[in-house]
């Protein structure tokens, strides 16, 4: 008997006969591979021997550009302001020190093995470019826990300031909403929009989704407790019978606004599965750096970018040699310098590109890493990874998605915010940031003061090499400037998360880099 081909066999056959693009399309139609628009590394064939490219910035965008261009046969070098590669991809561990604008220096006191990722920290499963290169460069990944039903949701002004379990808010919000909708249907308030058939379907859906009883009421029951948990947990033996839990008052559930965190986690970019590199986000930056070893000159500050019909000249202060002025010449330039910095550099380009460079401000964001003597969130509260949210300025606590059940000190993310609260946190001294995160976090975990060991607070607006966290596009600036920013200007092309629609994510940096080098290659081949 001949069985019909499995999906995998079918895809292999399509791939063999029609090529990878056809396979990709087939996969997409069959429900696979519908991630960002990354398909495969670019095939840059036919580069003219001896063509050179200078890449500005050794973050992920710059290193990827250098890696792929070198593979294609270009002569490549990278200039980097910092004394390390990786850019915003970095991790802080015990022994590291961090100096910010204004001069404050933090010495990280974490125990061996502990770290915090001040920049990128999680990777959605559909960010296929970064996942592709992690695999290609041998970066081990593990699950990052975004959603934890046992984590906490907290509004200082609701429930007497007591944090609620994510699970309870989710169950009650769904149940209470379903109950109201069922009531509206049963009282014939929706007859003008709901047909008799649909009415039946809707009622069935509300009962199942919201756990309503025979009277379409959402109330304390075994059924509801199987979702929101019990007042007395299920046990064994003679006294094993559970006691159901009491739902929260509906008006307060609605008023608390805690549903917004359920909605946040429904975002495409927050959906499971998410990943993190084993051992810290900088495993990715380090893996990229290994691929471009020998190509990077660190400690040089670009001051001018000029181009004419013959090539590109980049002028820099060489901080390896007392700030001596140096120049790098090449046929082409890929510039990944953040716009917050590039907007202050003399760039010779068409007016629309220069205007675009000036048009995109950078967000402020702060992260605080806190180390505690023990994993009280696991030991006392059964919280394993995931995020608790609060209306306080520190906004959230993310528990480590690794090292579960281990003894000894552990680090959690004790604050992470953008917007007004980030401006406020950034304006504090590093010690004040840590203290504020501790003080606010104690409203969620009483163990904070007793178990605290050490912390670090990173304000992105004070990082000397970016002066901000990531690009902030408005609808108006995107319409007016995005195309000008991303199109190659004679011999110069820009890349970085700012030159993408996946802003503030590493994926955006990589996609923009691939788009940039594809343009550059087409330009170079045309010129050859």
């Amino acid at each position, binding site marked *: 008997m001949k069985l019909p081909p499995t999906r995998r066999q079918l895809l292999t056959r399509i791939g063999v006969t029609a090529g990878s693009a056809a396979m990709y399309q087939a996969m997409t139609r069959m429900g696979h591979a519908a991630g960002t628009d990354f398909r495969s590394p670019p095939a840059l064939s036919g580069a003219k021997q001896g063509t050179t490219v200078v890449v500005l910035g050794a973050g992920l965008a710059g290193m990827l550009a250098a890696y792929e261009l070198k593979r294609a046969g270009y002569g490549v070098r990278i200039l980097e*302001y910092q004394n390390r590669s990786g850019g915003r991809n970095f991790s802080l561990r015990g022994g590291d020190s961090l100096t910010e*604008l204004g001069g404050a220096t933090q010495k990280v006191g974490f125990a061996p093995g502990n770290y915090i990722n001040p920049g*990128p920290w999680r990777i959605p499963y559909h960010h296929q470019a970064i996942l592709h290169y992690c695999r290609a460069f041998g970066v081990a990944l593990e699950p990052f826990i975004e959603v934890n039903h046992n984590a906490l949701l907290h*509004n200082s002004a609701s429930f007497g300031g007591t944090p609620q379990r994510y699970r309870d808010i989710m169950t009650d919000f769904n149940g209470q909403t379903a109950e109201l909708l069922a009531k509206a249907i049963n009282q014939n308030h929706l007859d003008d929009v709901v047909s008799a058939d649909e009415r039946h379907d809707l009622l069935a859906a509300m009962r199942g989704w919201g756990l309503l009883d025979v009277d379409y009421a959402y109330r304390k029951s075994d059924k509801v407790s199987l979702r929101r948990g019990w007042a007395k947990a299920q046990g064994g033996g003679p006294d094993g019978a559970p006691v159901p839990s009491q739902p929260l008052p509906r008006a307060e559930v609605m008023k608390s*606004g805690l549903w*917004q*965190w359920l909605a*946040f986690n429904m975002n495409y*970019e927050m959906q499971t599965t998410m990943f993190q590199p084993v051992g810290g986000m900088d495993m990715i930056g380090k893996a990229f750096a290994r691929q471009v070893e020998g190509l990077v000159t660190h400690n040089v500050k670009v001051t001018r970018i000029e181009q004419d019909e013959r090539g590109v000249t980049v002028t820099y202060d060489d901080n390896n040699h007392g700030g001596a002025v140096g120049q790098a010449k090449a046929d082409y330039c890929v510039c990944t*310098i953040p*716009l917050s*910095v590039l*907007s*202050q*550099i003399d760039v010779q380009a068409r007016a629309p590109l220069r205007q675009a460079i*000036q048009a995109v*401000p*950078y*967000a*402020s*964001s702060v992260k605080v890493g806190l180390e505690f003597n023990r994993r009280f969130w696991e030991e006392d509260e059964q919280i394993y990874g995931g995020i608790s*949210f*609060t*209306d*306080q*300025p*520190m*906004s*959230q606590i993310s528990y480590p998605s690794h090292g579960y059940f281990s003894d000894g000190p552990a680090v959690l993310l004790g604050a*992470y*915010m*953008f*917007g*007004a*609260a*980030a*401006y*406020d*946190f950034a*304006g504090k001294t590093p010690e*004040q940031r840590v*203290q*504020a995160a501790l*003080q*606010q976090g104690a409203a969620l975990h009483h163990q904070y003061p007793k178990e605290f060991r050490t912390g670090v607070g990173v304000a992105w*607006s*004070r990082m*000397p090499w970016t*002066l901000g966290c*990531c690009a*902030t*596009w*408005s*609808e*108006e*600036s*995107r319409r007016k400037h995005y195309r000008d920013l991303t199109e190659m200007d004679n011999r110069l092309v820009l890349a970085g998360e700012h030159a993408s629609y996946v*802003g*503030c*994510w590493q994926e955006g940096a990589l996609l923009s880099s691939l788009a940039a080098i594809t343009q550059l290659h087409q330009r170079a081949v045309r010129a050859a």
Partner: protein
Amino acid sequence: MMRRLALATAVFAASASLCSTGPAHADAASSAGGGPAIKADSGQQVYQHVCQGCHMANGQGGVGAARIPALAHNAKLESAGYPTYVVLNGLGGMPWFNGMLSDAQVAAVITYVRTHFGNDYKDPVKSADIAALRGPAPTMEN
């Protein structure tokens, strides 16, 4: 220090808006505590809770790969119109504050900066001056 921290918490907890514009950045769960409104009345409060995150507590700014301009002893503050334009619309890497700060807050903080940090421009900036220069705020993506 604890008193100042307590104040900051109160200031921002009060301003937390659940129906804010929501996370403006893909990776940010920032709507709580980071809503568009900032509750700070005096120019000094606005400076401390917003401006000094970049321009520093002493108004000296900073220099790295690029520069955050010093507001101290800054001759560009002589005409109030310039800082008003910059605060409302942003400049280069600096974000716009139109939509986040009220006319009164912008007026207060500009008046504060123009009379502190070694600046001595005594003509006060009024809310009406700001209102006259304020256009529609940009629309955040998402």
